[in-house]
């Protein structure tokens, strides 16, 4: 158990914190925040595992994958936020409709 593996463990915990909040929290903006935290957890696992390489320098392939991941995260965050604002403008509530409500 060295420092990079500790960071990887932290990444796993971050992912599940985000997953729990994604299910439990009701407001759409909080769901977007939770999805972002999940993404950050996954990135931390990738970069921590890439940092284990000793003298050969860090593994550049996970770094490239995380760079791609950061850009994809900002894309879905942007689309998700515009969707959330639109949902609130059309239905008047900033959460997903419940069973029995209009739109469910």
């Amino acid at each position: 158990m060295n420092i990079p593996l500790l960071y990887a463990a932290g990444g796993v915990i971050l992912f599940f914190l985000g997953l729990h909040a994604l299910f439990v929290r009701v407001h759409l903006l909080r769901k977007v925040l939770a999805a972002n935290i999940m993404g950050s957890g996954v990135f931390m696992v990738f970069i921590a595992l890439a940092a284990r390489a000793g003298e050969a320098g860090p593994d550049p392939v996970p770094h490239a994958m995380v760079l791609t991941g950061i850009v994809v995260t900002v894309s879905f965050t942007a689309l998700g936020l515009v969707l959330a604002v639109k949902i609130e403008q059309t239905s008047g509530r900033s959460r997903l409709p419940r069973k029995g409500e209009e739109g469910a």
Partner: protein
Amino acid sequence: MTLLSALFDLLLLATLLWLAWRLLASADLFKAVVLFIAFSLLLALAWVRLNAPDVALAEAAIGAGITGALLMVALGRLSPEDACPHRLHPTLGQRLSAPLLISLAVPAAVAILLSSLLTLPETAAGLAPLVTSHLAQSEVAHPVTAVLLNFRGYDTLLEVAVLVLAVLGIWCLGEAQVLTLPGSVSPVLLGMTRVLLPVLVLTGGYLLWLGGHAPGGAFQAGALLAAGAVLWLFAGQMLSSRWSDLPLRLLLLLGFQVFLATAAVPVLQGNLLLAYPPGWAKTMILLVETLLAGSIAAVLAAAVIGGRPACAPQSFPPAGQADEEKQQ
């Protein structure tokens, strides 16, 4: 020395986890967004500690900067959160299932993953030696740029496609609302924008050029330019319809189109996808990176604005034809 750095890493990790918990559990949305920006900045520090400077640059610019701006703009457009949303007559199954699932399934999953993490070796070279041995072939001196735009160029191509799709989705959903009225802008902000914009353009170009031999590259440069564009928008400036009609659409698509062309031309010549002709790789990578940086800046700025330009046609078919069909 290693004890101190280990202590620093432990403190940083603990702060990150605590920040994530506080921001997800916070009662106030604004506080959650501010804590998220702080979390992203500390995450960039964690990337530096883990020897990933390119990712740190991208996280600070895109994760903290652009995502923070997106969240603040969305927060301004949403109405205040209601205090406690009541569930109408929940059944026993509904009341039990979520907490039970979460309190059993999540700790079990965490335990399984952590135990399998402990079995991983402490040092593993991974693909680093393979990349280093082929670095000269890619004609780029920095391994991450070589992987991004040469060895795994296919992933980058699809990533730019995702960016374009996101803007398409945002533009389908509604028209752009004004971010700041020109009359209400503080002169201090205007003055700072006038000073900062040239610095941002220069630094973006510097980072783009640096990507060939040091941490940097198209995405970081694009994020900086996007920050400049967003600053310009917040300072009350708006894009006139002469620029937001065809030129904006061209800029949004140009990076993806040129990248797709450089990927497809070798296929037409009978080669593999994205097989750069030998000797031309550095030129093509530089061309693609420059256009990508411009496109990424336009895409991220369009994402912050959050809607299509006002001069765009609002429906398809155009409104005149729909009226005629209704009359018939």
